[in-house]
């Protein structure tokens, strides 16, 4: 196989930059994201035909958009013709027909430059529609908004390509069958629909964050994809506090990437990380996004609160300078916003740092009965840590061993087993 020419590499780069905008722009015309993606792909094929011969156009994005929209209009015209044969031509199609003039697309583009952002937002909300399963939303979002190939998504999630391909096909079919409108949800639906979008972005990030040494490079690349999506969304919804809160959280978490893994490939816990390896640019961006989120919200939402907790760590030059009292207060607020035993457990850890292990152990013991935490390795792990600090080594060792038995992550299990062995 010969290496791709400069033109082909340029086409690939243009495609990755433009794919989401083009699919979104076409979807507004055809009101079907599956069809829109197909038509956008047709435009890509046309580019691959023409550009190597004619050279890249001055504005390749506009070329692709115009080509895809022309194909969309052709398709609508065919449908209208088909409908007319059956004498069922509706008013909507009539209206569309009236617009089909040669310079229609250009006029549309000129008049609606500002709407490209709106189209993108519609595409995000559609790909993350709650009618889809979480896995389907994630796959469709990476495909339509990230411009990733099914192969790349499959590698990132350690799944066979046909599984992802089928997931995407089904997702498009589900959207069609449910007649999900291509629009930004109205005020009444907005909060739960946005929560669904933010969840998808956060899941993609965490999947990348969970990657371990030796994994395919597409896995850690998911963090960058999530960050890009989050930043894009923040640009489209600059007045939404939780969008900014999520972006702040991701920027700060991403700032720790280089410090999270030791030279031997083992995970390094937050308080033991070499903070000089944290990325100051991402921290600065995270803190700026957090400040904007906090200024916008009367009551900070869960992502903003988690970002504020992450920011407490980011602001401490060394672990000993961490403002644990502030972190406890933020966990209090988080527990009010989203009551959950996991949040309570994390709060207990912060209490342990702020007020000592004995106070924290009391809290953890009250949580131990919660069935939601029965199989959660973090509970015995935290308990083991507190017991070790209290000098109760034998009990601590038993807890670390229990935690090691509960985790499915190999690296984590090794870490817990090491901690248990150190207490023997």
């Amino acid at each position, binding site marked *: 196989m010969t290496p791709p020419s400069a033109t082909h590499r340029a086409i*690939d*780069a243009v495609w*990755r*930059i433009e794919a989401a905008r083009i699919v979104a722009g076409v979807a507004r015309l055809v009101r079907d994201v599956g069809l829109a993606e197909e038509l956008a792909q047709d435009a890509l094929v046309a580019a691959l035909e023409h550009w190597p011969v004619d050279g890249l156009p001055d504005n390749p994005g506009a070329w692709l958009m115009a080509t895809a929209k022309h194909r969309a209009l052709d398709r609508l015209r065919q449908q209208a013709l088909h409908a007319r044969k059956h004498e069922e031509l509706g008013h909507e199609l009539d209206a569309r027909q009236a617009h089909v003039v040669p310079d229609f697309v250009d006029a549309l583009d000129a008049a609606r430059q500002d709407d490209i952002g709106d189209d993108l937002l519609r595409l995000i909300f559609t790909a993350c529609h709650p009618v889809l399963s979480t896995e389907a939303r994630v796959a469709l979002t990476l495909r339509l908004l990230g411009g990733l190939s099914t192969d790349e998504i499959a590698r990132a999630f350690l799944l066979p390509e046909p599984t992802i391909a089928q997931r995407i096909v089904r997702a498009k079919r589900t959207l069609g069958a449910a007649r999900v409108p291509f629009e930004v949800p109205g005020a009444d639906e907005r909060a739960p629909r946005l929560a669904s979008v933010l969840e998808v972005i956060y899941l993609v990030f965490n999947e990348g964050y969970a990657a371990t040494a030796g994994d395919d490079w597409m896995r850690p690349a998911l963090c960058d994809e999530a*960050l890009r*999506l989050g*930043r894009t969304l923040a640009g489209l919804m600059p007045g939404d506090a939780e969008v900014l809160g999520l972006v702040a959280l991701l920027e700060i978490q991403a700032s720790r990437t280089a410090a999270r893994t030791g030279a031997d490939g083992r995970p390094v816990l937050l308080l033991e990380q070499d903070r*000089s390896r944290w990325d100051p640019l991402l921290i600065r*961006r995270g803190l700026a996004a957090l400040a904007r989120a906090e200024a916008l919200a009367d009551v900070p939402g869960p992502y903003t609160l988690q970002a504020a907790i992450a920011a407490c760590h980011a602001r401490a030059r060394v672990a000993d300078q961490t403002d644990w009292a502030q972190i406890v207060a933020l966990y209090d607020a988080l527990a009010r916003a989203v009551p959950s035993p996991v949040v309570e457990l994390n709060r207990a850890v912060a209490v342990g740092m702020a007020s000592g292990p004995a106070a924290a152990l009391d809290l953890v013991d009250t949580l131990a009965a919660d069935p939601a935490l029965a199989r959660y390795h973090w509970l015995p792990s935290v308990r083991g840590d507190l017991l070790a600090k209290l000098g109760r080594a034998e009990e601590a060792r038993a807890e670390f061993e229990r935690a090691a038995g509960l985790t499915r992550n190999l690296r984590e299990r090794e870490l817990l087993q090491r901690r248990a062995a150190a207490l023997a």
Partner: protein
Amino acid sequence: MRFMIIVKASAASEAGVMPEESLIAERAAYHEQLARAGVLLDGSGLRPSADGWRIRYTGGQRSVVDGPFAETKELIAGYTLIQVRSRDEALEWARRCPPPQGPTADAEIEVRQLFELEDFAPGAAIDRMREMR
């Protein structure tokens, strides 16, 4: 990967003349495009070299040389820092950068890829570089 799009200085930028409204608007639109694509990390214009200085190292001595500096085309007037998936994406974004001195004026931008500190082999000096960031 991160790339810096460097805008070279011009006689006007060195004279401290603020760019025309239309140029600023174009630049803002470009940055907005980058931000909306989620690739913009940072960016700023630089004050003319008249406000800067150099430290010159000669024969083991160091001396301060105040600006302005003559070789305008070697100077930089601003930068845009982006994070992209590939070198080709960086090239495509750079192609979209509006002409910095206006549609017909000669000008130049330069694109350089940033080293990640992880590109270096581990060593004491690299650890100190990290600590200073």
